[in-house]
């Protein structure tokens, strides 16, 4: 790909980007949020059309106007958001052969028996066991990802793009994915791998390209770079201290959870958080962290168990009541649950504190404005104005808005569910700083994450969750990635 330019309504997403993949290599494409990685890859896979630029495959110039064109040329992509590529109501088999059905490569009359058989064969080749007749809606996230990979395998691919495939995967599943990727590589396919987890990149990639602000900064063999180089290239500066921690005095117990349970996901959780303390709950995807956070926030109703905030029994009948009891949640699904993308930053920030913005039910524009500008300033949200639609902000800044809306609610306990998901390193650090400040103010922090390194770097105490239960506790300095993983993947007793 050379000289690729792309603008979205005047905003330049790509500047003269150059990018090349060789057959039989795994090529990492790195960059901060909004650097343009997905956009570049969408152009390569025909989902977007470049404003200017040429794409060559095996020396031949290609014109890729639609995904169908790209697929015909052998370019396939596993997109970042799996749900955009799957039809939930259809079966696994049909989703695997979606491309074939879509591009008239099947017979006009579908032979369901054959379709199921072929799908099963393909999945077993990949070492996967997913019932092919099951509806995709009922699969786990990792299984969905695998269906997408199987879909690529079903076609004759020359280039396969993986856009942040590992974000939702457990370590084990990530390993499996890497095996598959290596297998593909050996058959002479060129792979592009996008990830924010740098250790993974160094583990599997041959070549690394780093982007910043729509430009290609470096392209080097992986062996010629180290993590610091990459971060320097991504951010244009180096990152000294990844896990800053403001000094906080740990005080009285502020949150006390006893035997909280709901269905299969949360099976009796006990935990305590004290004022000024950051408690991390780690676990693999599907361990039940999100469900736990929703129970604590009254978003779902527990089957049993009690929650006390500051010694008083919390009312968790609804989020409204939870907020009243002093609990707030920064949810995992930022764009769906954390913020309203079609509303301005100002409206988003007013929402939980509307009562403070009104007198006799009438909204005060001045109060709303000062509330919003206050938060924007305090958290360093990068936005042209508080009236900007939140959906137009970058991921990290959206997350800051999702956190910022709680700042003026005088909550006692903040629950964060994967607040750094899909957030680049620079913005990540900003979020850690905010969390530290909250702890310093004497808030209790419950931090749910599947990134063990973050938990180790940030938390005063780490609880490991597995299969809906807290199975182990570590104090600051006790935990290592290895023993966290051991307990998180259902290990009992002591690690070997």
């Amino acid at each position, binding site marked *: 790909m050379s000289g690729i330019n792309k603008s*979205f*309504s005047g905003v330049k997403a790509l500047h003269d980007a150059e990018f090349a993949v060789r057959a039989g290599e795994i090529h990492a494409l790195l960059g901060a949020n909004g650097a343009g990685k997905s956009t570049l890859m969408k152009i390569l896979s025909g989902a977007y059309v470049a404003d200017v630029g040429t794409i060559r495959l095996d020396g031949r110039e290609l014109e890729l106007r639609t995904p169908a064109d790209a697929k015909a040329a052998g370019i396939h992509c596993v997109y970042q958001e799996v749900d955009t590529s799957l039809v939930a109501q259809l079966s696994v088999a049909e989703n695997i052969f979606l491309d074939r059905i879509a591009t008239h490569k099947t017979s006009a009359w579908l032979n369901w028996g054959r379709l199921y058989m072929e799908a099963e064969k393909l999945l077993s080749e990949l070492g996967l066991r997913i019932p092919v007749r099951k509806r995709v809606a009922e699969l786990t996230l990792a299984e969905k990802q695998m269906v997408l990979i199987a879909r690529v395998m079903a076609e004759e691919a020359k280039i396969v793009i993986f856009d942040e495939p590992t974000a939702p995967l457990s370590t084990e599943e990530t390993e499996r994915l890497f095996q598959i990727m290596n297998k593909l590589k050996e058959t002479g396919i060129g792979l592009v791998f996008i990830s924010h987890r740098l250790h993974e990149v160094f583990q599997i990639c041959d070549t690394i390209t780093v982007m910043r602000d729509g430009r290609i900064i470096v392209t080097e063999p992986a062996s010629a770079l180290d993590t610091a180089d990459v971060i320097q290239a991504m951010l244009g500066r180096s990152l000294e201290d990844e896990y800053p921690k403001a000094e906080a005095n740990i005080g009285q117990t502020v949150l006390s959870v006893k035997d909280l349970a709901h269905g299969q996901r949360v099976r009796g959780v006990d935990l305590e958080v004290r004022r000024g303390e950051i408690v991390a709950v780690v676990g693999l995807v599907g361990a039940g962290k999100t469900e736990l956070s929703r129970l604590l*926030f009254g*978003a779902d109703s527990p089957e049993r168990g009690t929650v006390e905030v500051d010694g008083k029994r919390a009312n968790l009948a*609804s*989020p*409204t009541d939870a*907020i009243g009891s002093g609990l707030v*949640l920064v*949810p995992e699904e930022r764009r*769906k*649950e*954390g*913020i*309203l*993308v*079609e*509303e301005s930053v100002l*409206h988003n920030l*007013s*929402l*939980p504190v*509307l*009562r403070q*913005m*009104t007198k006799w*039910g*009438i*909204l005060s524009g001045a109060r709303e404005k000062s509330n919003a500008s206050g938060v924007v300033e305090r958290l360093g949200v990068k936005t042209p104005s508080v009236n900007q639609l939140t959906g137009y902000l970058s991921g990290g800044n959206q997350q800051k808005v999702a956190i910022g*809306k709680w700042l003026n609610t005088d909550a006692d306990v903040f629950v964060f569910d994967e607040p750094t998901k899909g957030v680049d390193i620079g913005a990540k650090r900003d979020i850690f700083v905010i969390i530290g400040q909250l702890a310093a103010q004497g808030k209790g922090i419950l931090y749910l994450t599947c990134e063990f390194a973050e938990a180790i770097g940030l938390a005063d105490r780490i609880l490991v969750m597995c299969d809906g239960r807290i199975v182990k506790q570590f104090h600051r300095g006790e935990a290592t990635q290895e023993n966290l993983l051991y307990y998180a993947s259902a290990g009992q007793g002591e690690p070997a």
Partner: protein
Amino acid sequence: MKNKWMDYLYKYGALVFIGVIVLFFSIYNEFFFTYSNLTDILRSISIVTFIAIGVTISLTVDGFDMSVGSTVSLSTVVTATMMVWYEMPLVVVIIAPLVVGAIVGLINAFLIVKIRIPDMLATFAVMYIISGVHKTYTKGYAIYNHMQMTDGSKAPGEMYKDFLWIGQGELLGIPFPVILMIIAVIAVHLFFKYTRWGRQMVMTGGNEEAARLSGLRVKRVRTYAYIASGVMAAIGGIIFAARVGSGQIDAGSPMLMEAVAAVFVGYSVLGAGRPNVIGTFVGAVLIGVLVNGLTMLHIEYYVNDIVKGGVLVLALAVTFINMHRKRT
């Protein structure tokens, strides 16, 4: 440059368009641009506007109240029977249909919020039920002064003068329904823009889950929205009864479509691209002006529908072409 021009077209297109057609009709027919004709146009749209406001409120919370038409029918006959059958005092005559409208809203909300039937499906079913209920209530008869009852007797009452004034009277030379309509439009606009509850409705419509996780009681908000929608329709029904001086059967069902048309034209006003009460009002005015003006041009009545549909397509096309132009 060109973009800017397009933005203006998009934002003020609907208003400019109304201006142009008003100008055109005024030139073509000297009687069009007279005070009495213009106020009559406003009066003629007042009922539809109330219904359309109801639809707009339901759309604001991301629902769709299809039952407003039959709510109008029901409240019209309830109003008329309060006078003709029961000779109730004027307060009761007015309160009763409002309560009925609120109850219809509550039923809708119950089905949508509690039973979780999708909005359009639920209100569609309720539309049928209410339509049947109002005819069952009157046994299919229209309600008029001293009407003949099925048992052979005559109804005791007639529609009160004071009541009819609501639909036919004037205040300072402005028809009273027009005053009501303008108050309602402004009030609802201010409500959405400047009150906490209005903001809560807008936010709930924007993303219900995010609003809920921000601490809004979204079910309650949506319930209120449907009640408000029902009450707006009921006001439309009261004005209808006062305007025609009787309780007509099925009065509201043709108005649903008209109201929806107004709301949809309203999407394009000021480039909103979503339901908004000012746009709805403008949409209703546009349709009213067109229908009034076209008859002056000796256009056959059946061509009206083509023009209405055409204007709707035009308005929507400008809005959505522009919205997608911006996105890419």
